[in-house]
């Protein structure tokens, strides 16, 4: 197994006209760990995700991903679809992006597109219905069923994703990301809008994804209880720059972090205090 961190950002900068959303940001995410990326609203967290997953082309900097076998990818050079296909990075979105008119099962089947495309002989063998294609399709369904069970949505496999409750949609989106077989899973505020019970279940799910499946996780989260409970390391951003980095305990006591939150949003600062208490 490679000893390099799974993800390393080196001087990542993203400019939108005059706005510098991310400014010379460097941090690493360790293999098979949960790394949390926190910061007040507008700090640039989602922008970092969009750079990692190829939705934005960074103005400058390097985003390096290293697989277990040592294979390296520089994400800023990859085509957007290759970030999932080759570099094996999956993500969810801050505002959920499911395929609302497709069933939960179909959503998870679309996630396995590249593997299935290959198995279907670029559609031609699939059109003829050759046995190897049928076997591949069945194993894709089995994989989808596995993840549906894992997130507790198996009984709703045949329902349209658009009909799901908010919390269920969030979990379905995670299941869909996992169906791509990622090395790194990027979650943008997965606990947003969840109630306490759902949030607890989410913690368990993420911990199990990390330890049972060996998937490294990069997590944006405002809910401090989630961050404190499950993350191995925390990176704090404000105004596009990193202001602190360390274990959850270190971060909790860092006056700079508390100041950053106090300076922007009372509620969140209170959440930090609460987690401390």
């Amino acid at each position, binding site marked *: 197994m490679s000893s390099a961190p799974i993800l390393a950002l080196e001087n990542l900068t993203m400019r939108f006209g005059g706005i510098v959303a991310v400014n010379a940001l460097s941090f690493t995410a360790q293999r098979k760990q949960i790394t949390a990326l926190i910061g007040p609203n507008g700090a640039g967290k989602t922008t970092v995700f969009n750079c990692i997953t190829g*939705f934005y082309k960074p103005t400058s900097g390097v985003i390096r991903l290293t697989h277990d076998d040592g294979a390296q990818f520089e994400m800023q050079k990859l085509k957007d679809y290759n970030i999932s296909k080759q570099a094996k990075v999956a993500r969810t979105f801050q505002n959920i*992006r499911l395929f609302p008119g497709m069933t939960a099962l179909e959503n998870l089947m679309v996630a396995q597109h590249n593997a299935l495309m290959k198995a279907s002989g670029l559609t031609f063998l699939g059109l003829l219905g050759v046995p190897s294609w049928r076997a591949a399709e069945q194993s894709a369904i089995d994989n989808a069923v596995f993840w549906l069970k894992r997130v507790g949505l198996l009984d709703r496999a045949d329902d349209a994703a658009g009909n799901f409750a908010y919390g269920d949609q969030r979990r379905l989106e995670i299941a869909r990301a996992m169906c791509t077989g990622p090395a790194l899973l990027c979650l943008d505020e997965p606990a947003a809008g969840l109630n306490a019970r759902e949030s607890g279940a989410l913690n368990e799910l993420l911990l199990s994804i990390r330890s049972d499946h060996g998937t490294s996780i990069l997590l944006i989260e405002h809910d401090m209880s989630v961050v404190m409970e499950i993350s191995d390391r925390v990176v704090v951003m404000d105004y596009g720059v990193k202001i602190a980095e360390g274990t959850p305990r270190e971060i909790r006591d860092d006056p700079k972090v508390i100041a950053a939150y106090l300076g922007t949003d009372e509620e969140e600062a209170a959440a930090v205090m609460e987690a401390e208490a």
Partner: protein
Amino acid sequence: MSASLPPSSPFQSNGSEPVGAAFILKKAVLSALVALGLFSLMVGVRTEAGQSGQLEYWTRFGELASLVGAVFVGSIAVELLRLWLGPRGGFGSFVPASVQSGLSVAGRYLAPALLIFTFLVPVIFYNQRYILDLGILVLTYVMLGWGLNVVVGLAGLLDLGYVAFYAVGAYSYGLLSTTFGLSFWICLPLAGILAAFWGVLLGFPVLRLRGDYLAIVTLAFGEIIRLVLINWQEVTGGPNGVSGIPRPTLFGIPLTPGEGGLAAMLGIPFSPTHRIVFLFYLILALALLTNWVTIRLRRLPIGRAWEALREDEVACRALGINITTTKLTAFATGAMFGGFAGAFFATRQGFISPESFTFQESALVLAIVVLGGMGSQLGVALAALAMIGGFELFRSLEVYRMLVFGLAMVLIMIWRPRGIVGHRAPTVFLEKSKSISSDLVKEGHG
């Protein structure tokens, strides 16, 4: 990334508007005013060229008044109907659940019944040439509709230039057969391949465009192909078109009178109807092939990727789907079916000219897809039958044909804003295939 709410249908108006006599009256007056504005020149003043070419005109205020009056009364009637039918929420949602499920049961038997009937049409109407010709026409549009459905209904790409591929297919067969003497059965796949090739060629520059821009560029592409056909006289014959296109043969056996013809070989008397019946089954087979391939493609990763693209392009990119090739394959597949249909058209007519491939054809096929319910195979077939058959039905109305036809379209779109078959059937299921309501299914954006 901005949060986007699903756009609600313009016909599903908000229920907060007050519905009173004043409201209804106001709406009717407004409608009447619009009608007055529209018709005052169209109907109110009649112009004609006089004997020596001078402008002659006279007024027809009586007709104008009756039209405006009809709009006024009609508007009140529609509003009262809405009031009577229940809470305002679009006509589509008025249908009670029991009727909906009844419809879906009927739908299950409708498709096989329709198919059996179609197979029997040449038997039942053997002596009615008109019906057979109409059947061939309807089936041609069913096939075109199914082909365009791949692009518009599944992949959600608005293509206003579909007729271009129909033309490419027709001219491919017409020119290959008249110049090189190739037979229909060799030219048919070639026509499909050439059309698909043009589909990809069109696709490359336009697929980065979305929505309205894509629609406009595809529209222009359709027109460009037509203009090329008109102006490239040496190859295409210009406005005169290509004539003397060979009729199809039954795998080499011509359907002609005399020695070597099918009738002579079977020892039955020759009849020109044989060829019509043959053409009927030919287009039926082509259409069914299109249907079969499309249904299968939907259940393959490529088809699912098309639909996913229609639902959310950003999510597709995050899942490692190559947007460009996925869109191109949709364009190419749709174009290929258009090309097949074009080759059939050429062999049926025996003569083609650019006049057959105007924007009106594109619009008609698109209307069939939209009316049918985007993505639904059965819906598209029903819509083609309704549009082409209905158009013939109203033939006796002469000048009012278009008017009645347009009115019927508007009414259907009010009644079923998402088309005749509005729901979507899942492509894979674990326990039970539950059809998905049209409110959830996206229409695509580009």
